[in-house]
């Protein structure tokens, strides 16, 4: 079997059509980015995220009602995987001041249950911890153990033998878990995943991610300029911009549209974009490689014919190589599980757009440049 055998189409003659298609795709993307914006994952935004697996199926709106009035403002809720999985997220770093008294009362109850009647006083409290002072070091040590056993992150203030103070960390995650345990006593849950990211980390990562994308593009630009001609390399990198921006636009446009597909930009997705940059240039290189070869053989053929012939001759392999990768990514999209879904999605659509641009955009840009500057390109 052979596809696209003896293809003979004047692609460059139709390049205006592809310009229109690309520009409209790009504009649609741009508009959705402006109107709908990006949704960053916890890696970039910072905050707290908990994924829990309940024993029985849960009703998301029910859980939402429970967490709405625990003083954390809006808490994002989503199903995770099956209908027993729930993902909760808040951008808050620490527990808001106004609900602190509630937490203290809650802690009082906890201390009363684990050690009834033990005398103590609060010596200090910060946004993320409460320090209790007990009568003597032995009681303090005992309380550390008991509170840890009860599921609280507890520690001694100092390891000196005379220490009587105990710090209990009160995090947002603990507060949410406490409340859900109380409100849903008949449906217990276990924690699949718990992430807490500070605000500084997120900002640093954003800069780093942008830098990584930029350096990748630069690296490819330099390598291709060295192997081909600068104009080819510029065409390839412009095509890459095109692929990345349209896929990003798709992200903004489709966020929250397809159920079960969580299109948030997190670290894994950035990884997918970088891979996309590295891979989608492959098809462009295949076409350019053929143009280079043809130019050496047919020195006097007009550039337009040369490029058209190269595209036609390599069409079958471009489609096939992209096709096999798409097959693999499709398997990943379907069977790869919840964690990899956005990653696979990026690569799936990115590869389709990348293949399109390799065939119809990159070479057209080279031709456009040669036409306008009336320069002869030679190898």
């Amino acid at each position, binding site marked *: *079997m*052979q596809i696209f055998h003896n293809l003979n189409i004047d692609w460059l003659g139709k390049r205006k059509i592809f310009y229109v298609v690309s520009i409209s795709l790009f504009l649609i993307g741009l508009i959705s980015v402006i109107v709908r914006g990006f949704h960053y994952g916890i890696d970039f935004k910072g905050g707290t995220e908990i*994924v829990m*697996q309940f024993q029985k199926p849960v009703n998301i709106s029910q859980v939402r009602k429970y967490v709405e009035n625990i003083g954390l403002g809006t808490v994002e809720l989503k199903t995770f*995987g099956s209908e027993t999985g729930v993902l909760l997220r808040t951008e808050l770093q620490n527990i808001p001041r106004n609900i602190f008294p509630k937490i203290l009362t809650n802690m009082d109850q906890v201390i009363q249950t684990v050690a009834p009647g033990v005398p103590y006083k609060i010596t200090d409290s910060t946004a993320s911890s409460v320090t209790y002072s007990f009568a003597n070091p032995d009681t303090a040590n005992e309380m550390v153990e008991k509170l*840890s056993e009860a599921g*609280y*992150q507890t*520690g*001694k203030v100092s*390891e*000196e*033998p005379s220490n009587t103070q105990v710090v209990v960390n009160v995090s947002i995650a603990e507060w949410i878990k406490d409340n859900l345990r109380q409100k849903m006593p008949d449906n217990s849950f*276990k*924690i*699949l*995943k*718990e*992430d*807490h*990211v*500070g605000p*500084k980390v997120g900002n640093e990562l954003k800069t780093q991610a942008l*830098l990584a994308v930029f*350096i*990748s593009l630069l*690296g*490819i630009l330099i*390598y291709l300029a060295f192997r081909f001609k600068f104009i080819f390399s510029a065409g390839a990198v412009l095509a890459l911009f095109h692929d990345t921006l349209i896929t990003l636009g798709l992200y903004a446009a489709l966020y929250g549209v397809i159920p079960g597909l969580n299109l948030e930009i997190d*670290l*894994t997705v*950035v*990884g997918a974009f*970088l*891979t996309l940059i*590295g*891979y989608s*240039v*492959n*098809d462009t*290189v295949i076409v350019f*490689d*053929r143009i280079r070869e043809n130019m050496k053989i047919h020195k006097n053929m007009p550039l337009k014919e040369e490029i058209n012939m190269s595209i036609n*001759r390599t069409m*079958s392999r471009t489609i096939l*190589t992209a096709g*096999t*990768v*798409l*097959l*693999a990514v499709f*398997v*990943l999209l379907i*069977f*790869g*599980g919840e*964690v*990899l879904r956005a990653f*696979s999605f990026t*690569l799936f659509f990115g590869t389709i757009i990348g293949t399109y641009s390799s065939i119809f955009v990159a070479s057209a840009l080279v031709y456009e440049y040669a036409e306008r500057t009336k320069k002869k390109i030679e190898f």
Partner: protein
Amino acid sequence: MKELRFRIILILLAIGISLYLLYPTYQAYQFQKNIDRTVANRIEQIKKEDPQITKLQIDNKTRAIEDSIKSSDPSIGQAFQKRIKLGLDLQGGMRVVLEVNTGKLLEKIAKSPDDNFKQVMAQAEKEASLSDESVVDIMARIMKSKGIRLSRYFGNIREDDAQIISDLKKDADDAVTRAIEIIRNRVDQYGVSEPSIQRQGTRRIIVELPGVAREEEAKQLLQGTALLEFSLVKDPEFTISVMKKIDDVLAGNDSTSSDTTTAGKAETKVAKNETKKDTANQKMTAEEFAKKHPFFSVAILNQKSGTADAYVKADDRDKIKAWLDRPDVQKIIPDNCQFVFSAKPFGYQNGQAFYTMYCVDKNPQLTGGVITNATATISPESSSPVVNMEMNSDGAAEWARITGANIDKRIAIILDGVVYSAPVVRTKITGGRSEISGMSDLKEAQLLAIVLKAGALPAPVDIIEERTVGPSLGQDSITDGFRSTIIGFVVISFFMIFYYHRAGSIAAASLVFTILFIFGALAGFGATLTLPGIAGIILTIGMAVDANVLIYERIREELATGKTIKSSIDNGFSKANSAIVDSNITTIITGVILYQFGTGPIQGFALTLIIGIIASMFSALVIARVIFEYMVAKGIKITLG
């Protein structure tokens, strides 16, 4: 045929090395299955004996039993060390990024901090939370703008600001080193297998604790406060007599071999089953000695040293700890003493690290809160490394009394239960300034200085990022990942065979080798397999056949011009070369950048992608070509669909 020989040898070599590198992974998998079974049986038994047992206790027991089985046989340890490791996202565990709170540290160092100072610090910390600038610099800037000299709070009056800033920065840097040392010390004792503790940038520490089931407990390990104690080392006569008693008890129990209730006993049994082959070759006398003197066979005394410091193999420490915890042994150990191990091994023999075991006073003479400073230098007199230790006035008075009463005795410096040094007291030390010598190099002296400061100046750390993956999510990810790999492989192979017939099946066969090489290289590099890493492998499967497609399409083109099959194949391979190499190098470029940029899981992805591309190029350009040429030479018909 001859021209193929070299390449065939190369291929066989690559396959052989991959299999060799993967063998420990297979071994570790088998070991783990056995260990899980043994542990499950033991826990079942423990539950039967004590139905009241709490989950926390079961967790601890499980960990203890598993650790002691793993340490009982060096070959298990080796297999685990050389296997392909699973990332936290696959096996579950905790990743915590800590940042040393320089602001709090400065508050602690400052002389008589007043409200003004606190105001400055509050502002500095606020600014620091938004930028990368060092807190010391920010504070110095604010002080300057307010016209306050730094010497008002730090250093002494004669020093200028620049000098103080550089001193404070050194203090901040020390605090990070100290925090790392404290955390490493605790994590080692806690028994987390394969923890990773790394420093990142100037004041961050990344701690990865695989498979930690109890988050709360693990987080306590990461706090910056530590207990430093000075305890007298017991007299050799006393220690040896205690050891003899322990030895007798252990040897006595050994003869009544029906006793299986004690944990230590059951473990040695398991160990024996697994090491039977190794020990059978050893001399009977060693075995007899071990039977008569179980304690002295693992805690080796050096008669000539004049001390009762016992040398213990790294792997035997857990065994000794389990023995010492036995109620019958506990009964005969006097109340006023305890056995503690050295923090670092003192030497190696046959690849095994040896630790020192000391017997010290249970009640410390002094705790570390009294130490005000400790510095490591090279002594000008002896030109050997020493540590200078300073104490506050309370401490100095106590220290004079302690050293005066214990001349020529040894005092162990213990941090969080392990001994960092046990120097001999030469004279009575008054005034609180002591010099500790006997370190082998400056590095060791610096470590001791860090440890000495740990009691007085805790390194306050904040958790700025924390990620926990539960074991069940990890298990799901492994299942999903491997299922996708297999489905991906089958689908792609099927497509290639369908489209290229016999040539397609060669592509499918070289795909098998590509996957083998990827796993072999992962094991060889000691890399960690993560979920994105598995995704990288699946993606590589899709990309690997690209090279085959390029070559086959080229061969078809050549065939269409009427060339023979042999020259078409030669031309196909050589003409497709440049496109294959150029396109793959661009992917490798981004892979390398991704590796630099990413953390944990993403690095795993970048690594598998890079390895996968290189392996697939080898498979397509060397293996597939050899198969083609072989078939041509043998006259086997090649069909390209």
